[in-house]
């Protein structure tokens, strides 16, 4: 018997079709993975199945959840099933937990109000749920006292408290590093057990590989490929799926080193940075060669972005020195941001922003050739940042930085919000720029494979105090973690 069957689900925005007819079945004990890039319609599909589409969008099709048969065009009727039959695992657990309520109380509340248990029963169930997840001690804590992983488990306990057999996890690993990602995958699998239904929506190939089960690959609202996850990932039939899989940093070919000889662009020596009274790292030393890609990687919270900011002079170091090559001007170091949308003035057309920069630097003639080099359409310049895809916007950020002819670009998790194909493209372009422009790239990413396959030298930043590496950057790549 299947838990969840959706037949011919479509989503339209007026006359425009955003999701073409899609049918799926979630069987107990076997996760169903929906894989797709940003804008592929995978989140819309989940919202159509849940009856939570944003106003203005219309869904059609039939959804069978357990013993209930509903029409996707009547989202109101889904409300009674939320929490009891079908539940959603929130994307970023810290944001979905109530910051003013203890973890245990939040789970108790769900038991009491959604499942309808008495106060005493709800409390007992909540503490046993949390105990099973290894969170007995955390029940008395507030969300800000929990680690990310613990918050995620509390959110899972609260989402499951209503007794829903089917869990929809929408990008459950967004913004997590590799170790935490695997934890979440294992947790989801163990929570599903043998007779729960699990629908995972993701663009994360590593997560998909670990979850197994069945897979649907979506692209621009159309189904590209379906099949067992293992089969799809090892022997994809469609060209698009193969491109998607090839874009996984694990399977990239290593980039040829591009560092140039001569004095380093920046020399970092014995650097320590503290934030809020806590020392993030100390005694870090390295140098970045012109035209080279220098990678910094490590788990989230290890201070790798702060290290980059310290190199740019945006954060004052507690100890140590950052020495720029003498001929580099005050604007010779530029930065790319994790969220490119936030890096542009929100209400200004992109073309105006770029023109302002080009006018200031006197590089107006370079805009058009750079647009072409970065594969960007000039029509994008008419739009505002919110109306351009993340990949295009990140490339526009690169373009904007290049108008300053920088000696170094600090790329702070530049692709963590992009889908794999776009990620491969943007990282490839950064490598090319290092090669052709001689700009040094300081690449910070939580993705060790991405950094390993892109950078000429890698600095692994952990929670431990690092030994001072040799001044030769290349040797840092082999420094023990």
């Amino acid at each position, binding site marked *: 018997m299947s838990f969840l069957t959706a037949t011919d689900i479509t989503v339209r925005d007026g006359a425009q079709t955003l999701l073409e007819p899609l049918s799926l079945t979630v069987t107990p004990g076997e996760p169903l993975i929906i894989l797709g890039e940003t804008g592929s*319609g995978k989140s*819309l599909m989940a*919202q159509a199945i849940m009856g939570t589409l*944003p106003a*203005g969008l219309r869904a059609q099709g039939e959804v069978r959840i357990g013993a209930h048969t509903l029409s996707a065009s009547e989202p109101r009727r889904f409300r009674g099933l939320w929490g009891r039959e079908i539940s959603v695992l929130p994307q970023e657990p810290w944001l979905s937990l109530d910051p003013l309520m203890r973890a245990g109380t939040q789970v108790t509340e769900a038991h009491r109000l959604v499942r309808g248990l008495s106060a005493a029963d709800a409390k007992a169930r909540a503490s046993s749920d949390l105990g099973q997840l290894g969170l007995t001690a955390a029940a008395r804590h507030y969300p800000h006292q929990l680690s990310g992983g613990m918050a995620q488990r509390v959110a899972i306990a609260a989402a499951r408290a209503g007794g829903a057999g089917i869990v929809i996890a929408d990008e459950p690993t967004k913004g997590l590093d590799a170790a935490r990602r695997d934890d979440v995958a294992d947790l989801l699998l163990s929570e599903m057990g043998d007779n729960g239904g699990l629908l995972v929506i993701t663009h994360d190939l590593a997560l998909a590989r670990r979850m197994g089960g069945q897979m649907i690959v979506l692209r621009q609202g159309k189904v590209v490929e379906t099949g067992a996850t293992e089969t799809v990932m090892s022997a994809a039939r469609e060209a698009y799926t193969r491109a998607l899989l090839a874009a996984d940093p694990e399977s990239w070919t290593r980039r040829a080193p591009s560092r140039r000889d001569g004095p380093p662009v920046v020399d970092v020596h014995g650097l320590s940075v503290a934030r809020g009274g806590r020392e993030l790292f100390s005694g870090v030393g390295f140098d970045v060669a012109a035209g080279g890609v220098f990678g910094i990687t490590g788990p989230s919270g290890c201070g790798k972005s702060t290290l980059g900011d310290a190199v740019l002079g945006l954060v004052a170091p507690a100890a140590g020195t950052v020495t720029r090559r003498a001929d580099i001007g*005050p604007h010779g170091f530029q930065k790319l941001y994790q969220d490119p949308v936030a890096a542009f003035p929100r209400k200004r057309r992109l073309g105006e922003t770029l023109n302002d920069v080009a006018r*200031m630097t006197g590089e107006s003639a370079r805009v058009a050739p750079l647009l072409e080099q970065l594969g960007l359409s000039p029509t994008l310049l008419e739009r505002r940042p919110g109306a351009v895809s993340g990949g295009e916007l990140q490339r526009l950020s690169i373009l*904007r930085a290049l*108008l*300053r002819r920088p000696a170094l670009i600090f790329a702070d998790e530049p692709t963590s919000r992009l889908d794999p194909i776009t990620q491969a493209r943007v990282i490839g372009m950064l490598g090319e720029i290092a090669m052709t422009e001689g700009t040094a790239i300081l690449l910070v990413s939580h993705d060790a494979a991405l950094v390993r396959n892109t950078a000429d030298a890698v600095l692994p930043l952990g929670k431990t105090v690092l030994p001072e590496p040799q001044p030769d950057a290349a040797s840092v790549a082999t420094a023990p973690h």
Partner: protein
Amino acid sequence: MSTAELYTQPARLPVARSLGASLVILVAAVALIGPLLIPGDPLAQSLLKALSGPEATAPLGYDHLGRSVFHRLCAALMLSPLIALAAVLTAGAAGLILGTLSAAMGGWVDTVLTTLADALLALPGLLLVLIVLAMVPGTATGFWIGLSLVLWVEFYRLTRAATREVLVSPSVEAARLLGFRAPYIFRTHVWPEIAPLMLTTAAFGIATAIMAIAALGFVHVGMRAPTPELGLMMVELLPYWREAPLALLSPAIATFALLLGLTLLAGSRET
């Protein structure tokens, strides 16, 4: 970015705002064009006509001293909105400049200004206006200074909060790294974010100011008779509500329409 964000809801027709704008324009049109169409003097008395009904030269009848209510109303509708507008412009400029300075400089500048703003906030607004009225010769000037002192705090607090948020955003950091200076950053990053807030606050501020002038007039501590002023007109005509209901209702309705119009125009404080 979740897919939902890409498809924003179609903008709801700003019915409330259009209605508010129409009301304000209507009241302004009456005040500006009325005296041109039907010339008359708001101070001329004709005791024989005291409390008599409407006629061609006085469409709203006469008050207890035989003055044309219509012309007094038109004059009143010119007086307090103009004082209010002047006060809001001064307060808005002061709040914007000080708020931006506070957010950009931080440190002791921020501490001093915020403490001052908080101290003023602790004082009842009308009391502050009254104190200034007692000190400053000339009632209109007194209202202008007093109301500006009351109103700048809100502009200051909003500007400071919004500007601080914008200044720590990646977009401003990127602009600084690229070499843009403070005026550019204010013009392209800060102002577009706070302009809608400023306009909303200005509309509310004008309504508050008109209300304050009328309230103080109503309790005989604002504008002095015989100046035509909305609150003063109401309190003068209150004893004659039975004989001349229209004369009493006219300033009340005009004030209500103006305040409702401004409040609707301001919209919700979230925008």
